[in-house]
């Protein structure tokens, strides 16, 4: 009797359909089989459909002549160039507008985020109105609005608006002056790099010395002096070659200076203002996340307002700010694809033209997706590295 009960209670091998391991394997096999079947079905249909339409698949078309013009491009391009070259033009345009957009949106967002926390009632309210307005209107609509403003409402070049001296806004775009190219600029750039490197080395040394001896060193001021002073010294040594290339009215348009086309300007303004409103909220939340006791403790230690910000509040706020900031940068880059609405030749817009001309939809869309995935991964990687630098080090 007793031995029979023990026999019944001993955990033996369960039946296969009750064994979690066996079940897991079976479920996965079924899952993979279903996925593969669906994929095979779709691929089969696509192949049949493409055959019916007489479209040869493959990336061979990339070498063909593109035969369409592109309004603006950073690299040399003519309609006689290949589709691949056109893709590259689109890619550089996308990267160009995203890079400028990320920098400007960060500045705008930080300023507005700080303004929302200002003790000045009027400034805080204005910042809040900005955020609540632009965050709640679709970006596509904002782009069309700015574009319409620049294309239709802005005056002809002869009556161009002039918000700043030598900056002109007309229906041909936004023109502003740039310094004439000069060999000294290259040496100034080198001096700037040297200054950044030197100030980094100085601040490292100063921090180590402070840890060792407790003595402080005005590394910030010396660093600023190095970063600004070295290029300035080169500039003066070269005889201060400050000749501005100023836009001037010639016939019906401006010549000289740099011109942002209405499309580029509208895309940049829209992206910066829209993303800036999100970044402002991130910055605000990050600073609010640092408890007031931290600031009080810093004041009790006798730190100045600047030291309090730099040593106590900012390092803790950055920990909260950096991860959501990464996703804002990613979404700005992805949102730059809305350029297709207003006709700025970004990657998606050019791929779209290519697909319409050649019918190579599968290849075109695969290429766009691959490019965006790579861009997303690179931005995530850079921001994750930065995040690791600011993250809390625990044990």
């Amino acid at each position, binding site marked *: 009797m007793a031995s029979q009960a023990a026999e019944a209670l001993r955990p033996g091998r369960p039946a296969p359909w009750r064994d979690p391991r066996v079940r897991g394997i079976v479920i996965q096999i079924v899952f993979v089989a279903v996925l593969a079947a669906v994929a095979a079905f779709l691929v089969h249909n696509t192949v049949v459909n493409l055959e019916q339409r007489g479209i040869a698949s493959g990336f061979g078309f990339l070498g063909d002549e593109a035969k369409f013009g592109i309004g603006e491009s950073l690299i040399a391009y003519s309609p006689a160039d290949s589709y691949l070259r056109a893709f590259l033009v689109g890619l550089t345009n996308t990267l160009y507008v995203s890079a400028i957009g990320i920098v400007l949106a960060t500045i705008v967002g930080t300023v507005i985020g700080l303004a929302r926390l200002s003790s000045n009632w009027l400034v805080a309210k204005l910042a809040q109105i900005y955020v609540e307005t632009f965050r*709640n209107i679709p970006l596509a609509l904002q782009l069309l609005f700015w574009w319409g403003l620049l294309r239709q409402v802005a005056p002809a070049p002869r009556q161009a608006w002039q918000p700043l001296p030598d900056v002109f806004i007309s229906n041909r775009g936004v023109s502003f002056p740039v310094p004439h190219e000069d060999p000294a600029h290259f040496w100034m750039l080198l001096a700037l790099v040297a200054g950044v490197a030197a100030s980094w080395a100085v601040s490292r040394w100063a921090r180590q010395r402070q840890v060792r001896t407790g003595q402080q060193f005005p590394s910030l001021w010396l660093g600023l002096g190095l970063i600004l002073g070295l290029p300035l010294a080169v500039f003066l040594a070269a005889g201060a070659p400050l000749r501005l290339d100023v836009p001037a009215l010639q016939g019906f348009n401006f010549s000289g200076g740099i011109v942002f086309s209405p499309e580029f300007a509208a895309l940049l303004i829209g992206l910066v203002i829209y993303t800036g409103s999100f970044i402002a909220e991130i910055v605000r939340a990050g600073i609010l996340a640092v408890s007031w006791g931290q600031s009080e403790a810093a004041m009790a230690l006798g730190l100045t307002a600047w030291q309090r910000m730099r040593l106590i509040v900012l390092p803790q706020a950055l920990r909260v700010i950096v991860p959501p900031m990464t996703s804002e940068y990613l979404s700005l880059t992805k949102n730059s694809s809305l350029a297709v609405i207003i006709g700025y030749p970004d990657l998606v817009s050019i791929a779209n033209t290519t697909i319409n001309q050649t019918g190579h939809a599968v290849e075109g869309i695969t290429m766009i997706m691959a490019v965006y995935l790579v861009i*997303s*991964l690179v931005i995530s990687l850079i921001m994750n590295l930065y995040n690791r630098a600011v993250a809390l080090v625990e044990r």
Partner: protein
Amino acid sequence: MTDIAQDLPAPAERPPVASTGIIGWLRANLFNSVFNSILTLLALYFLAMTIPPMIRWALVDAVWSAPNGQACRGDGACWAFIAEKFRFILFGVYPYAEQWRPLFVVLIFVAMILASCDRRLWGRLILLWPAGLVVIGALMWGGVFGLSYVETGSWSGLPLTLILAVVGMVFAFPFAILLALGRRSKLPAVRVASVCYIELVRGVPLITVLFMASVMLPLFLPAGLTIDKLLRAQVAFILFAAAYLAEIVRGGLQAIPKGQIEAADALGLGYWRRTRLIVLPQALAMVIPPLVNNFIGAFKNTSLVLIIGLFDLLNTANTALTDPNWQGFAAEAYVVAAAIYWSFCFFMSRYSQMLEREFNRSRRR
């Protein structure tokens, strides 16, 4: 001889004028330091430069009624254009005589959204929404109860925007839950597939997904089978939204203490019963505020369908501009469309902030 008056409390002095009333408020809030005073003056200058021209444009110089665009030219806004085009912007190319139907659809949507905000009704939403969507479908399509049939090609304006956003979210949600569970599954094949899908979709812009749906979806289907343009866009929205929703749901799943799952196991619940009865109710309740925020994003994203040629609210506003009799009133049309989008988004974001505050109440001391 002592002065009795000395022992009496002195009559309360009025606080100095400079610290009370309007002057006190101004000093405390606008001019409490040199820097703030400069900021205030700058802000006032900015307001003085922007507000009067805007009021002049929108109200003083505006034209309220005019027979055509020529009579409307001036320095101010042409609201006559909006009066002329308002029904087109709202309902687009839906048959003019039948436009009461999309109007009711919009009202039903608004009523359902408002009802969803009332937490006492949350238990019944699962019945309310399918019923509401069936009524909306019947109204839009027609062909029943003596309503004339209207094909999806004529659906446009605000109802289309709302349908894309709401139907997209409703269908994306179950898919997103499966994806989120898949991403946390113990089975490697399921996990890898879920991660690949989520990261792939989140890594590319919505436009490419829309392009894919409009260009490649017809290629994917068996030859001869065509698929409605609206349905293609809707599928794209569902696939896109699901990836983002899945990450939100995963956030909720990760926040469930392990003890809850172990307790469910101890009670002898299997995977699905444990997930349905223990894990999901807690996880989903936790992520309601980000879900509302995501819905706001989806609502704004519907404006991208103009790229594949659907007439949503933005596209009808855009198309109204092409009337040769009414040229050059882009600002007016966009301001009106923006106001409609804004009121929906602003209301929902306020609601999500309120929910967040309420949910955090238990966590606050």
